């Protein structure tokens, strides 16, 4: 059983409350069952025969955004998130999956994406793009951008064109499978992942760039953990890394000033999962006229927007509450623009920062290039 691999985490976390102040879901529900300790104690109690799975117990396991804030504040680095993912797989195997998670799986079964939607205008726009026969870069759009934030993809194209990059985008791009995996549908996620990595390989590129850090993290680390072979000759980069490299090498010069006071939100999957904190900041600092104000809790301590771990689908009120908590911190900065580098974060935070513009880093850079959007 998957959770058996995490016995040390269960033992450690079941008696420790020291990350209470940081737990994203705990700070929304204010219920101790939602803390890492509550979750670990639940699993310990199951092992000891003190508890059986019931609806509430299943709910607690799905009430985690996998933000890793607990790990970040823990000097020895205990992390409840991978234990939750393992526990969800056991819940699915036991046939106890919550209906809300089953609906997401059905969306994947019927439409190949978590939104349960067919092709969009962006799909058609992508098909019209001129693509070279020998691309060096594949821009992996990701489902959230495909179905919710098309302007990010269009901005990325603007940037690639400006840099003279030989790029391509997949028609009928498959999902990376991350959402399926974190909801506990590991077998299905692996099948999808194999299909996706095959499609990427078929493109012949050596570099994959995405504005969605969830996808990049999944390609870089997740797939291998799932047992999927990932070719060593493909480099997976978040757009912030691509931009920072392009700026450092002189390929990209941003000359158009933007008169904004910005603050930057570090996404969980870009920051705490891939430790990419400097590249987005380097990009922001290279835009003339931009003034940056850091949030009181930033980088590894940046608050979670609430949209991770499948929680917007399974417990939207918790996701909303987490977004509101993050929004309070963002508004403290007094900035007029919130910049983030994750479409899921943007989807959450735009609801919780009244009076602020919310922009993906990709879109901000494209704006600064002052060319077509």
């Amino acid at each position: 059983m998957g959770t058996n691999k995490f016995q040390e985490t269960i033992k450690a976390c079941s008696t420790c409350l020291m990350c209470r102040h940081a737990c994203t879901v705990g700070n929304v529900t204010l219920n101790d069952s939602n803390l890492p300790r509550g979750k670990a104690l639940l699993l310990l109690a199951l092992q000891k025969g003190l508890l059986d799975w019931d609806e509430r117990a299943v709910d607690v396991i799905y009430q985690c955004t996998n933000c890793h804030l607990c790990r970040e504040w823990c000097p020895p680095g205990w992390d409840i998130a991978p234990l939750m993912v393992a526990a969800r797989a056991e819940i699915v195997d036991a046939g106890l999956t919550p209906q809300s998670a089953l609906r997401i799986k059905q969306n994947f079964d019927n439409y190949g994406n978590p939104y349960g939607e067919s092709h969009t205008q962006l799909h058609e726009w992508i098909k019209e793009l001129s693509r070279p026969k020998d691309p060096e870069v594949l821009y992996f759009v990701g489902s959230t951008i495909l179905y919710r934030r098309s302007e990010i993809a269009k901005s990325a194209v603007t940037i690639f064109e400006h840099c003279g990059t030989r790029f391509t985008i997949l028609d009928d791009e498959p999902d990376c499978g991350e959402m399926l995996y974190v909801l506990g549908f590991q077998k299905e996620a692996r099948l999808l992942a194999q299909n996706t990595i095959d499609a990427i390989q078929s493109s012949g590129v050596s570099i994959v760039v995405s504005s969605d850090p969830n996808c990049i993290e999944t390609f870089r680390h997740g797939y291998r953990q799932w047992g999927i072979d990932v070719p060593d000759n493909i480099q997976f980069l978040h757009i912030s890394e691509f931009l920072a490299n392009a700026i450092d090498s002189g390929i990209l010069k941003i000359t158009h000033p933007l008169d904004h006071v910005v603050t930057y939100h570090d996404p969980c999957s870009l920051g705490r999962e891939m430790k990419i904190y400097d590249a987005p900041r380097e990009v922001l600092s290279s835009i003339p006229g931009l003034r940056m104000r850091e949030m009181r809790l930033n980088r590894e301590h940046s608050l979670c927007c609430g949209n991770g771990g499948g929680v917007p689908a399974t417990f939207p009120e918790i996701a909303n509450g987490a977004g509101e908590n993050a929004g309070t911190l963002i508004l403290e900065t007094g900035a007029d623009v919130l910049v983030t580098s994750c479409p899921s974060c943007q989807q959450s935070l735009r609801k919780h920062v009244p009076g602020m513009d919310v922009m993906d880093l990709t879109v901000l850079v494209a704006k600064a290039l002052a060319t077509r959007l």
Partner: protein
Amino acid sequence: MSHRLTSYQIDIVMSELIDIVGQEDVSAAKVDQLTYAVDHYWVPEMWVDRGLEPILPDFVVHPETPEEVSRILQLANTYRIPVIPWGGGSGSQGGTLPLFGGITLDLKKLNKLIDIDEKSYTITAQSGINGQHLEWAANQKGMTVGHYPASQRASTLGGWLAPRGSGTLSTKYGKAEDIVMSLQVVLPTGEIIRTLPTPNHATGPSLLQLFVGSEGTLGVITEATMRADPLPEERRFRSFLFSSLSEGLEAGRRIMTARIRPMVMRLYDEVSTVKQVERVLGIKAQGSYMVVGFDGFNEFVDLEESKVIDICSALGANDLGSEAGWKWWNHRYDFYYPPRLKSLPRMFGTTDTVCTYSNIEKLYQAKKEVIENKYREWNAYYLAHFSHWYPWGVMVYDQFVIDQPPENAHQALLLHNQIWADAARASMANGGVLNEHHGIGVKLGWLMKEQYGPAWKAMQAIKDALDPNGIMNPGKLGFALR
């Protein structure tokens, strides 16, 4: 007060609780009952570890206002249901165990920051506010609450006050009972009251201090105003190595009686110096290690540090400089995270107490002797450091540890209680008290009559007057059941 509700009564009470707080804020689910049956007390953790079900509450309720708390207490009086206030659940004395079932009242939804008075340096917040969040709010205004318990991130404001807790810097900034200005409390019969707006006055006995330390037995603390201090201009550390504990204790006494005000002094006995300091801080040390911290204006820090260096040098201490002290400060909570946190299957307890300087050495020796000699067959060992200093005395933060206690839970509990009684009685016999800053809870309640002697009658009379039906946290603090 020792009966459990029938299943029909549970449904009735559930209906009434939902009526008060809403469906989302009441639970009788096993998961939640289990979560709130285990705080940081060794006993329920041991029960779970041994596969035994801890004592569960019937309901876990999350009120959002003092008015909801009042209605819940009135309901509890009607049905004679126990009510157990719960803040962070980080207490080590079993103060939140639902010994007779009932309603565990999680106060964390009463978490509003109400006011920061920047002129008077006071902060008012509801009692369920997280300790770290409160401190951050103070920091944004250039202030500190000055209360840094190891549990700061886990505990709540109410949880600091209920057991008269202490923080790492209490030597300078005071314990919870020194920092609190006033309270809002819901009495056991439901009245919502406030204590006087200032802690110092000549307006009768202190109602404020009646509730501070009451551990949920005399009412529910719903709001508190705390004194704050300016964030210091500078913090500085210095550490010393004495040849023995005696010299270290004498140094501490001279420092405090000279009315020097270090923000912290931590003096480790010889065993702790080797076991903890060397292992955790990587400093090889034999003897008795002390770290002293100073904060405030640069000039004050310079002066206090130089006076302390003089005192310690006169007692033959090696001056280890400042680096080791900073290392301790930056890792001071490392001891509280697993795997460094003592954990099962070990049996352990912090038998802290406080006494005057005249008594401290003999108290320490008496406790060390009883733990190590009487419990030799269990290979019990005793560690101590002295971490909270007063103008008149010092507290000893001492622990007993048994690496391999009995596997049988009942035998383990009997051994546990026996050691605790011996340690506590050694404290009381040598001018100390049952506890200095962790509280009494259920663990030490049965020794309270012995501690207070004839004065216990007054304590019980207060309890009976305020809580005639005995609903508030029954079985705690040693109060008789009603």
